[in-house]
């Protein structure tokens, strides 16, 4: 992904989180993860992401 595309995703996610509302953040993000995981079709890659995102919380 080009840096400008990645930045667009960053902005779209921020806007979507605000549209979902604070009390729906967790549900919304979990749906996003499951759907991206299905698109990725790479279990090891997804599980690695799940682990790496636990760092530095």
């Amino acid at each position, binding site marked *: 992904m080009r840096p400008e595309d990645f930045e667009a995703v960053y902005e779209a996610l921020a806007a979507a989180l605000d549209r979902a509302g604070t009390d729906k953040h*967790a*549900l919304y993000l*979990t749906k996003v993860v*499951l*759907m991206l995981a299905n698109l990725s079709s790479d279990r090891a890659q997804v599980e690695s992401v799940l682990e790496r995102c636990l760092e530095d919380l």
Partner: protein
Amino acid sequence: MRPAGRGELDSLYFSYPHFPPPDAAARARTTFPVVIVGAGPVGLVAALTLARAGVDSVVVERKTTYNDGSRAICISRSSFQILDALGAVGPFLDKSLGWTRGITSFRGTPILEFEMPHSEHDKYLPMYNLQQQYIEQFLHEATVASGRVDVRWGTTFEGLEESKDGVTITVSDARGTYRIDAAWLLAADGARSAVRQHLGLRLKGDNHEGRYVIADVRMRHDFPTIRRALFDPPSNPGATVLIHRQPDDIWRIDYQVDAGESSESATAEEKVRAKVAAVLGDIGHKGPWELEWWSVYSANTLALDDYRHGRVVFIGDSAHIVPIFGVRGLNNGIADAQNIGWKLAKVIKGQAGAGLIASYTLERRGATLDVFATATKSTRFMTPPTPGWTLVRDAALSLSLKHPFARPLANPRQMAPYDYALSPLTQRDSEPHAGGPRPGVFAHDVQLAPGRHLLDGTGMGFTGLLLSRQPVDPDVARVRAVDPDFRLVVICHATDPASYDAVRSVYGETDRDSDFVLIRPDFYIAARRPGFDPTEVASFLTQLLALSYADTRHAS
């Protein structure tokens, strides 16, 4: 529990008989090959299995009638196959409601319709709904008809003494205390087994968080026999509700108890009425309804380390407690009863060594652990144990509304017979075999002609299935010398091509002139071989039945 003013047995639709304890003459006999503690479905299937094999038993039951409520209501295809083999399936077919489908909805919107595995070759549907008291009634009537089962109602197990050759149990009834001697004891006395407690044995495993109220209502409600699962319904936000149709206009409604609520408070009549009314609102029922019966249960996965303790063998809930999602409690209990039943009958008749009994725990505890694995998944979906599990479950359900990829997560993983591939009674293939059920799996049925099925007549001794292109006349005497009940079913292409092709389509094609499948009395496939070699089959059965190395008179 029942509404205020009605007794424990005041059912809206079922007339409970009263069975008095035996009089002096009826309890005169005090020595039996087998004593069974508990006249629930599991104990009665064990008694019937023994009776079919010609072995007498006595069943002692503390109560004086059938189960007070509908409880276990789903009977699987494999259990119907067992009832068929026991000659008892008729009344079950007449009364029960068969079903093949389920619908799951989330916040009032259907997200998943599932069809259970089902083919035109199957003699029975995947599942049948029938109240437990009918199950017990039909089984009890079959035991009476067998003439080999002495059911003693109002008779309480008080204790037992074990010896090398058997057990002596002490029981009490209204007339007093007496003793019964038996070579073997089957403990079918349920989750709070008195036999298990007497022996100081403990179930081990996990208690899950989720608790459910199960409530029966009587109402005229126009909906087919389909299992409905409602997640987060408007009536019960955050909770899970299951709805099953039963005979006699009875509907089962299961709903989750709120985490903070005590079971006592959740089972108060006004509370149950309010919850049920809300669920009926969810499913659009507007007519009148009557509350019939209710109870509460929790989702546990608990089992004994060993189902056998000397001459005492535990079957059903006394050996293992499983979550009810997936309807495995009753069906695994029935499979336990049939498994130990045919093995014990063979040992008692001197047709097998006591070593055969050792395979019971291996096979049936394996089945329980398998249930734990799948039921734990179902339970986590139905009643998520932590905030994390709740969040991913809700996310999956929310996605399911529009995205099919998420829907299989909501599949309830219904009961399927366990695979005995690793059992010592199962032989691996000696030659490649393309397709068809492997050794260790529950044999598949095949419709040979309308109303005529391959597995008809199976269930006493071992059954050999010989698929042959040319007519053959094999000599089975050698095999019958080991198993007198051995039956050979020959399906020949030259004489009956339609049946041959039908069986081949299910059991797999090979380029050989003949193929042989050995089916156990409980329908599991023990071995497959290219062709029928009576000497080899006799030798295999000798080994399987532990005849070569065990002394049937002195089991250890």
